[in-house]
């Protein structure tokens, strides 16, 4: 099958860069997710929607599965090849095509790097808020496909809140544009929204039209230090309950603090049990008032100290340090298995306590950090995939954490998607009927099942 596809693609698209040597394919056999690996048969680097469409058509004819890849930073195994598949890597489709200052929109190719999108917006005095920890290398197409969040989700929402339009190559090889520059549009179903978070299973995004907003006038960054994790969690709940919506409320536990400090050396308190990084932005007067009130609330709920970043450089150093949290944890143990449990914010303290207890019960080392303002935690198991006995305990603990999150009205994944890694837990997080509708949708868009098959669920 792949042989036929290879010759078809080669004949029709001789200029598309291709990789098929073992040494070239191994680096495409994994993504940012621990422990999953499958070799692709071929990797192709299309440079336009037309090329993507042509390749998808060929793949359909030959029955070859197509896995789309951005930068391969996904944390649920979404871009890991399936057996006998061809990988379409969009890293060469990385242009920012337009910044429309009249309509406050930006149009980019799907392989554009998230940071480049943010920088292009900033150059025009505008703001693209979603800032996943991986933004300096993740692609905007990957962000759309995972509906990625970031450090500013609390106030500004996630990727889907900024997608105004998408150009998508369908499984049939047809190309549609869904959405436009209008703020309002109810002409028919919003197909655009179906593709957001669809993890490359419904279509391949080739262009993204994004909404931009004016840049906030000022921002202020605080670091609150705590002697227990619960007091940090309670502070978050208190801030929300006080009807304050800062743009960032990030949490780091003691293990994470020390790993991040080893790398970033920004002066995090190594002996703290937890810290909250808090950022508020907007009108200067409002920012000052909010910052004061949040500092006060933190102290009331047990913060041992609250520090204010004095310069913009200091503030951005703290944000950069926070973005390194996940990777820094790899300093502790050979394998880092990160979870994405999310709960309603009123339940954070319970969830945090349960994660701690679960780690102790199974004698596992866990580092936890996350977007606490969103109720989104990343308990990360620090383990060794070569230690099978310990890996078994990790699986047990993982399941318990998911079950507990769901029992609190939460979910198994807040932003990393299901992919391969969360497939077996999806059932618990949603109803059978929901799952059934998803399957029907998949077969409506991709009847032959060639787009990223066996991701999210089996057909």
């Amino acid at each position, binding site marked *: 099958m792949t042989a036929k596809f*290879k*010759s078809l693609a080669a004949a029709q698209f001789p*200029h598309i860069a291709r990789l098929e040597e073992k040494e070239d394919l191994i680096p495409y056999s994994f993504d*940012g997710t621990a422990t999953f690996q499958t070799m692709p048969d071929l990797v192709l680097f299309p440079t336009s929607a037309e090329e993507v469409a042509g390749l998808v058509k060929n793949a359909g004819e030959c029955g070859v599965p197509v896995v789309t890849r951005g930068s*391969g930073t996904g944390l649920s195994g979404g871009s890991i090849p399936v057996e006998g598949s061809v990988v379409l890597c969009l890293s060469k489709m990385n242009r920012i095509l337009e910044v429309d200052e009249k309509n406050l929109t930006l149009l980019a190719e799907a392989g554009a790097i998230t940071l480049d999108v943010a920088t292009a917006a900033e150059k025009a005095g505008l703001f693209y808020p979603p800032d996943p920890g991986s933004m*300096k*290398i993740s692609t905007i197409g990957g962000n759309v496909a995972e509906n990625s969040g970031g450090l500013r989700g609390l106030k500004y929402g996630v990727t889907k809140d900024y997608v105004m339009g998408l150009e998508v190559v369908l499984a049939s090889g047809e190309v549609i544009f869904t959405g436009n520059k209008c703020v309002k549009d109810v002409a028919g179903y919003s197909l655009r929204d179906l593709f957001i978070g669809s993890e490359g299973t419904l279509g391949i995004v080739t262009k993204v039209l994004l909404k931009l907003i004016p840049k906030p006038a000022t921002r202020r960054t605080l670091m609150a230090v705590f002697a227990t994790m619960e007091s940090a969690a309670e502070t978050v709940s208190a801030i929300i309950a006080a009807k304050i919506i800062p743009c960032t409320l990030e949490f780091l536990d003691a293990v994470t603090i020390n790993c991040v400090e080893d790398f970033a050396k920004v002066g995090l308190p190594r002996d703290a049990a937890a810290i909250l990084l808090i950022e508020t932005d907007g009108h200067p007067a409002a920012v000052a008032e909010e910052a004061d009130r949040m500092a006060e609330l933190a102290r009331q709920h047990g913060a041992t100290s609250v520090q204010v970043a004095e310069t913009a450089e200091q503030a951005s150093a703290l944000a950069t340090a926070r973005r390194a949290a996940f*990777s*820094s944890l*790899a300093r502790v143990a050979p394998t880092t298995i990160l979870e994405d449990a999310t709960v309603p914010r009123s339940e954070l303290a319970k969830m945090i306590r349960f994660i701690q207890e679960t780690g102790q019960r199974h004698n596992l080392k866990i580092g936890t950090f996350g977007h606490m303002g969103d109720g989104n935690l990343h308990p990360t198991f620090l383990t060794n995939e070569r230690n099978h006995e310990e890996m078994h305990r990790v699986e047990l603990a993982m399941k318990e954490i998911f079950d507990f999150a769901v029992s609190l009205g939460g979910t198994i994944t807040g932003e990393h998607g299901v992919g391969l890694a969360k497939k077996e837990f999806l059932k618990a997080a949603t109803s059978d009927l929901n799952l059934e509708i998803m399957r029907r949708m998949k077969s409506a868009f991709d009847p032959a099942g060639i787009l990223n098959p066996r991701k999210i669920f089996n057909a």
Partner: protein
Amino acid sequence: MSPAKESEVHTTQNPRPTSLDVGSSVLNVGCSGAGSHSTHGGLKDLDYSILQQCMHCGMCLPTCPTYDATKMERNSPRGRISLMRAIADGKMDATRTFGEEMYFCLGCLACETACPAGVEYGHLFEVARSEVEKSGALNNPRRNAIRSVLLKGLFTRPRLLRLVGRGLWFYQASGAQWIFRTLKLNALLPKKFRNLETQTPTARATFSCDIIRPVEAHAAPRHRVGMLTGCVQDIILSDVNRDTVDVLLANGCEVHTPKVQVCCGSLHAHNGELETASDLARRLIDSFDLENLDAIITNAAGCGSHLKTYGRLLEGDAAYSKKAAQWSVKLKDIHEFLSEIGIRQPQTTATPHRVTYHEACHLCHGQKITKQPREVLKSIPGLELVELPESTWCCGSAGIYNITQPEMAADLQERKLKNILSTGVDTVATANPGCHLQLVDGARRAGRTLEVAHPISLLAMAYRAEKVVG
């Protein structure tokens, strides 16, 4: 369809393999390792957790110049580590393609700076190149011969190297170089190498041993230090060594400079010859009275980065491990040392001078020294430091990379020059002989006048002006 043909189609778009064929067949070539007893294992003998440390997050990708150029994972740190791991896992052999990839890597270590997980790429990279040399995957007679002459012959014999250096100087001074250029004899070279002749460095008439006495001191010195003269620095930029000694003297040091010093072995370690590198390390350690020196000073970033790893290089050597560990602690880059003891500000009148600073990879990434050279520059009265965009991006010199990978090296050189020229300064400071030559050559190609100077030379100049004035 012929797959071979297809991959040719693709490779024309990718700067990697075309230049590699030439590069790897010439300089970066293994002395086959036949019969060498190794205390340095290959990838399979490596502590596996060092490879596992890479959790493939991809955070290093945007800082890797080769990935930036091709946008292909094999040319990225994450991709390269995955190949090393495949070899350690027994899933792949150290093939020719693997070997070529390891020599397409600049060894610039930008990935180490970027990696939050603390992956020691530099170490992995040396072991991987050594694996390539042991496997003989890149062997061919020409490569072997050249490597043998350079790495095992020339760069292990300091006196011979100086002799060659003198020859080089004579060749330039006598006008032979001019004749060579005028007659366009370089047209006889293979196409990829035509550019090379113009890159032949300009050697100085004097070496460090001619201009630095074995012990120098001013009255009542506060520190006693050893001075490393380096080999490329010694032949091509021996003035920088003199300047370094002058700066040390001006900062209260008694300076010990052994007349004959072997190459530090960085060239060997980076090119897969860990045994020879260890040998050189032992010899160099022996030429200093380590116990009685406060610090050993180097002014060449590439050497310094390697010299600091002697501790690890010789950790398996019972006779030397202790000395080597002590060496690693005492080894200081000149800027680092000055910053630690406190730079004495030159007492001169300020002459306005705008300077930018290009960070040598092996200083900023290899040794994490970024603030100190700026401190040195800022201590000079009247000097205005203009920050260089992308100051930590490799200039393409990367040891002998500009010889083995001329295309990639030329792209990086052009990018660097563009950034330098955008600052509008007429002087760029940099602290590594390879970068120095690469920038001089880059300016020449761009047809621009640009002063290239070691930060320490600028400081030395300020101290000298001091003497003239007062």
